[in-house]
Every structure is written in structure tokens, then in C-alpha cells.
């Protein structure tokens, strides 16, 4: 089955679709449900799926998120692996009961330890003028409510590898694809067993001076910022968390214990965002390794404006990350 080491350059969303298609070929219990998925998906992730797997397994439905996720919960309880694409994570709030109570709690509250596989695709972040109700980064909710796993692929290869891992996971997974990366290209392994393990982060750039923890849309900006900082003699280690539930504490603490400084960078709102939890846990677990306070660079606590300049002004820029890097070294 495996295509060994072959790589192909493809779109982030296409890589996500490739991971999905590969798993559908070997697992007949996977089906896909969403608005427009039968015709290839709004953003191209489901392109060609209906042709290959038929309209029984790749199913369009009305505009009704609660039904879609509730159905996924019911199907997963009886052993199916539903994949639901809600198009925008913002819409998941309409399916709050179905995601956080039903998917997250059904096994627990009924005391039956059965696998419940389901992948809910909840694209997050700005995509250029989508407005306050189509641009949110609400991945912190999956961290707050127990019973779910949460992944945030930051590039095309991870989009495939994390999708495949999510489909093989016996727990419901909130798969937060990144809107702004949907149509970016990257090298993707064609190996049909290419998996990015859930719960494992990765060092994208090693550094000795400070640990910068990030994920999703902010990985590339952080890498760019790190290059600038390196020219000034500041070597920042960039960790792409890849999963928010569970967090890779082994990796995080190993790095922080080495650099003694930590920053968290994300597009999500700063207040009670993922960075708040990560920073709190770092100080709980490694306070006496810290030379400085932990800094957060995050989205502003406002609804995201539709106008493009305003929208960009509300999320961390490369310059802001650079400034934070300089700042932490001056503390």
C-alpha cells in the first residue's frame, strides 16, 4: 500500500482530502457529511470524494450544524467514523450541545468504554474579510470541555498526517484546519501510512534563548520572526504544538527547562485563550526554571472586523512576534 518516500506538492486542503480519501479506501465505516461536500466541498477538501466513494458515503446536507454533529455522535456510538465539515468553526457554537455534551460526554456518562470515532472539521481563523462570525479561532473550547481531542495542522503534510491520525483515533477529534492555509501549498508524503501522532508537537526551529510555543496560522509567522531575531543574536526555539488536546508536555518542558523563557503565540483571542492555559501550566510545572514571566502574543479581544487591514491589525503580526522576542530577552 505504502508509496514509500514519494512527496508531492499540493494544497493544504487537498492534503487533508488525500488523508481522508486514503482512510476511506481501507475503512468502509467512514462517511463524510457537510454542506456541499458531495460537490467537492466549499474549500476543496472533499474534491473527488463523491466520485470515488459514491453519494451514500459523501453526503450533502442542509444548513443545520446541530443535526450534522448530532448525527455524527449517533453514528459513532454504533461504530461508524463520521467526518463532518462545518466549513467554519464559528458555526460549531450552533452545535454546542452535540459537540461538547454528546460527542464529549456520551461514553463517560453512560459508563460504557466503547470507541467513539468522529472527526469534526472546524476551520479556524481569518481568511481575508470573512467577518466577525466567520473568522474566529475558538479551539480553546475543545481544551476546556473534557472528552475530546484537538488538532491544529500548520502545513499541508500535517493536514494529511493529522487527518489520518484523527480517523484512526477511538475518540472524537476536533480537527481545526486553518482557513488562511487552505490554499497554500506544501510537500506532502504520499505514503499511505504517513501519520502525525495526536499529542505530539514538533520543534520547527531549534534555539537556545527562548521557547516560542505556537500552532496553526502562527507557525509560519513565528518562523519568520525567528529569522529576524536570529540576525540580532536571539535564538528562539519554535515549537509547533500540532495538538492542543493532549498537549505535548514532555516536549514543552524539555525546551523551557533548557531555554528558561517561554512565549505563546496564537491567533485566538488573548483572554482565556489557549495561551492562558499553557502559560499557567508552565509556571505550575516549571516555575523555578523560568528567568522571566511567560509572554503571550495573541489576537485582540474584539470581534474580528471584516475590513482587511483592520482584520490583520487584530491578529499577531511578524513584527509583534519579533518585538515580543526582543522584549523577553530584555526582562
Amino acid at each position, binding site marked *: 500500500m505504502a508509496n514509500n518516500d514519494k512527496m508531492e506538492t499540493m494544497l493544504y486542503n487537498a492534503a487533508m482530502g488525500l488523508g481522508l480519501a486514503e482512510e476511506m479506501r481501507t475503512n468502509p465505516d467512514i462517511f463524510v457529511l457537510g454542506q456541499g461536500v458531495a460537490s467537492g466541498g466549499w474549500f476543496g477538501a472533499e474534491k473527488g470524494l463523491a466520485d470515488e466513494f459514491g453519494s451514500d458515503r459523501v453526503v450533502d446536507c442542509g444548513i443545520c450544524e446541530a443535526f450534522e454533529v448530532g448525527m455524527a455522535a449517533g453514528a459513532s456510538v454504533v461504530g461508524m467514523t463520521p467526518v463532518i465539515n462545518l466549513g467554519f468553526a464559528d458555526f460549531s457554537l450552533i452545535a454546542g450541545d452535540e459537540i461538547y455534551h454528546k460527542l464529549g460526554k456520551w461514553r463517560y456518562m453512560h459508563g460504557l468504554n466503547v470507541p467513539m470515532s468522529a472527526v469534526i472539521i472546524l476551520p479556524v481563523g481569518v481568511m481575508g474579510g470573512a467577518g466577525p462570525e466567520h473568522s474566529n479561532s475558538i479551539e480553546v473550547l475543545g481544551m476546556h470541555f473534557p472528552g475530546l481531542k484537538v488538532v491544529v495542522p500548520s502545513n499541508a503534510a500535517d493536514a494529511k498526517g493529522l487527518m489520518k491520525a484523527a480517523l484512526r483515533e477511538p475518540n472524537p477529534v476536533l480537527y481545526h484546519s486553518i482557513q488562511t492555509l487552505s490554499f497554500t501549498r506544501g510537500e506532502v508524503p504520499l505514503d499511505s501510512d504517513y501519520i502525525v501522532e495526536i499529542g505530539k508537537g514538533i520543534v520547527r526551529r531549534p534555539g537556545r534563548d527562548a521557547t516560542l510555543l505556537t500552532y496553526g496560522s502562527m507557525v509560519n509567522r513565528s518562523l519568520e520572526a525567528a529569522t529576524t531575531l536570529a540576525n540580532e543574536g536571539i535564538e528562539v526555539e519554535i515549537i509547533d504544538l500540532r495538538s492542543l488536546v493532549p498537549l505535548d508536555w514532555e516536549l514543552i518542558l524539555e525546551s523551557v527547562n533548557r531555554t*528558561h523563557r517561554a*512565549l505563546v503565540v496564537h491567533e485566538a483571542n488573548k483572554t482565556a485563550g489557549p495561551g492562558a492555559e499553557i502559560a499557567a501550566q508552565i509556571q505550575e510545572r516549571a*516555575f*523555578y*526554571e*523560568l*528567568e*522571566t*514571566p511567560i*509572554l*503571550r*502574543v495573541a489576537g485582540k479581544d474584539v470581534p474580528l472586523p471584516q475590513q482587511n487591514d483592520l482584520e490583520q491589525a487584530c491578529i499577531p503580526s511578524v513584527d509583534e512576534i519579533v*518585538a*515580543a522576542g526582543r*522584549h*523577553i*530577552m*530584555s*526582562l
Partner: protein
Amino acid sequence: MSIIRDLTIPMMGSVENARLLQWYVAEGDAFVAGDVLYELETDKTVTEITAEEDGILVRRLGEEGADFKMGDCVGWQAPAGSLPEAIQQGVALREGNGPQPAAAAVALATSVTALESSTTAATTEVEPGEMLMGGVMAKTSPRSRKLAREYGIDITTVTATGPRGRVTGEDVLRVAAKRKRLPVAAGPEANVVPQKAPVPTVEPGAEVAAAGTSLPSPAQRPVALTNKPAGTRVRHSLRRKTIASNMVCAKREMPHLTADMDIDLSALMALRKRFKASGQQPPSILAYFACNASRLLQEHKSLNATFGEDEMVLWNSVNLNIAVDTDEGLVVPVIRDAQLLTAAEMSTRIAGLAEAARQRALQPEEMAGGTFTISNPGALGPVVRAEAVLNGDQVALMGMPGIVQKPVAVALPDGSYAVQVRPILRLGITFDHRALDGGPVIRFLNALKFAIESLA
């Protein structure tokens, strides 16, 4: 009103006197509730004093090594988040050369306003890091404070190279590297054993004592001149360090455990009866235990040890502390080279020291340098269990409760059992679980039980 408040030594029950050993917070440093402020030695123990609330250490009034009464003021503190100007004004007021109260109040109000406005700013739009420390920039970091504690370095003496004059962890490590620490137990007879090689060396004198045969007369015996006897040092393995740190986290206090074992004193009682029958005063029961325990500690060195931050020292000779109850409380004089004494000698020495203790005639060197302690509350009344707090950095303590006549199952020659009433003493070894696991303690208890029950 000054914002400066007294930092006083907390009361600790019956303890009256205390010596301030070491400060852990530098002047100007912020601390949070639970941070260790300073280390205190009382006549009972050495203890770390932690902050009850968040604050800033404004001034150290107590010097390291100085003696205080409990409740004395050892420093000035300001509320957490106080601005430097407010602290300065507070200090001036306390020193009696500040501005007039009204002016001070205005000045303080101004600085409070400044603090509030900066807090408000923090919730809206600030550069990362600007909202930190309530305006007072700490001069150390959590890491540098921890390292200073670990290496026993006074952080205020460390040259700061960090941003804004901060002492960084690297700064502390630099000092530590320069200042190769002197061995705790220096002396020709201390054997430093590398990690994973906890093989104690036995000195000739000890061998003689352990064999229990012809002892040299007291005059011929080597006399320990140093406060600490010679011993074997075993560097902590990583595992031991982990166990130690876990144990501390688990209980927050030193993890004491006590293992008890019933010892049948029939043989001992019979022996003492024979002394009396021949018109001699027999050695005390305590002396028999002290004598046998000291001899056995030669073989069970891990109980005759002291536990430090980075290493544990297994001592070759036994400097035995005997807890003595006096009117002023407990004192623990030491009997040096106790492993060399016979039960009769032990009995005399204990009696002498106890009398000296009651007369307050003990010299400081007669109380220092112990390696193992015996507590004998049974002498005061029939307590059923003798668990006690460990003495200083010693890893084990032997507690002797009262002797109780108890029915026990005694093996008969035909293999059956019969219930007989025997004098039983429930001997307890309280030990520091960071340093010792149960195994060596039980082995020691077994050996001592065998020794006492086989006396003839």
C-alpha cells in the same frame, strides 16, 4: 501611615530562641505566599520560614547568624505591587525622617493611582511584559533563586549580568562553579565514594567493636577531635534525588515514617536480675539498647547517616544522641564513638550526661555532631509507641516506648505454641524516607531484636 510592615518570626509552640541562618530573599525582591523567606534554627530544629502573603522585602533587619526571640522583627515588608516611590516614602516614615503624614498620604495616593492606571492599561492594550510585577522589577528570577538555594549561595552576593540588573540562573551557576564547595565532613577519614558505590569502609577500631571482643581501654581509644566523626560519603544517584524530590512534594514536610517491632525483654530482664542477685547495679535497659544499637549501626551504616541537599554521608563511627527530658524541654547530648562502649560504660555515660543536662552544665560540643538519636519516652510512662521527629539532618531515630506485659505466642519444643505473658517493648525506628527505604530499617530492627533477645 507607612505601608511598611514588620516581618516577624512566627511563634512555634514552646520554642523561645532562634537563630537566623540564611536569607533567601534579597532586599527589593518580590515574593509570593509560600516562598521561603529565610531559614531559622531553633533549639529543636532547622526550618524554612515561608511568606504568609505576597509582598516585597524592603529591608533585612536580621543578620545571618544572629539570635532572636520568637516574634522578633527580622525585616520590613511592603505589600505586593507597591511602587518604589511608595516604598521609599514608607521607609522614610518608619525611620522618622519622612515627609509629614499629610504629604506622605498624598504621595502614596498618587503612586496608588499610578498603579491603578497601569493595571487598567494592562487589561486593554500594552506591549507584552509591560504589565509585569506591578511596576517593581524583580532583581532575581525563579530559576536563580532556586539555584542559589540548591548551591547554598547568598543570592545577594551574586553579581548580576541579566537585563535590568537581574541575577540570572547563569550568574548563580557561575558563582557555584568558581566556589568549589568544601566537603561538609572534611578530615582524613572521610571517604568520598563515587556514585553507585555505597561501600562503607570499616576502620580497624570499628571492626574490633563490631566483633564485640576484647575492647581497648578508654585511654587507648582513638578520640574524635572533630565535631563530625569520620564517615563514608555516597553521592546521591539520580534515582535517589528523584525519590527525594517526590517525597518532599508528596508531603510538603520531611517524610517521616516509623517502623515498629515488638522485642521480648525476658532475656534482658533475666540478665539484669543476675546482676542484682550478685549485688551489682545492672546497666540500664536504655544502655543495653544504646550499646547494641551502636554496635549494629556499624553494619547498618545507612541508618547512621546524615542527609543533605546533594549527598548523604554514611558515618563510620556512631555519635549517639540521647534525648533527655529536662525542665526546660528536650536536650540531646551526644556520646561520641558510642560503638566502642560496653553496656556498663554506656549506662554510666548516659547517667552523667542526663545529670549534666538537668544541671544545664552541658557544653555546646557535647550536643553537636550526632549521627543517630535514641529517644526514650518510655522512661516517663508507659507510652505504647515512640515516634519522634528526626534530629537535624540525621536519617533515623530509635524510639523506646514503655515496657508492657503482654500475652505472646511462644514456640514450644514440640513445635506447638503456648500463650505466655512476656515483657514487651515496641521499639520504633523513625526514618527519613527520602534517605532510606523500609528494607534497611527492618533489617536493622531484626538484628537488634535478635541481639536483645539473645542476651545471656
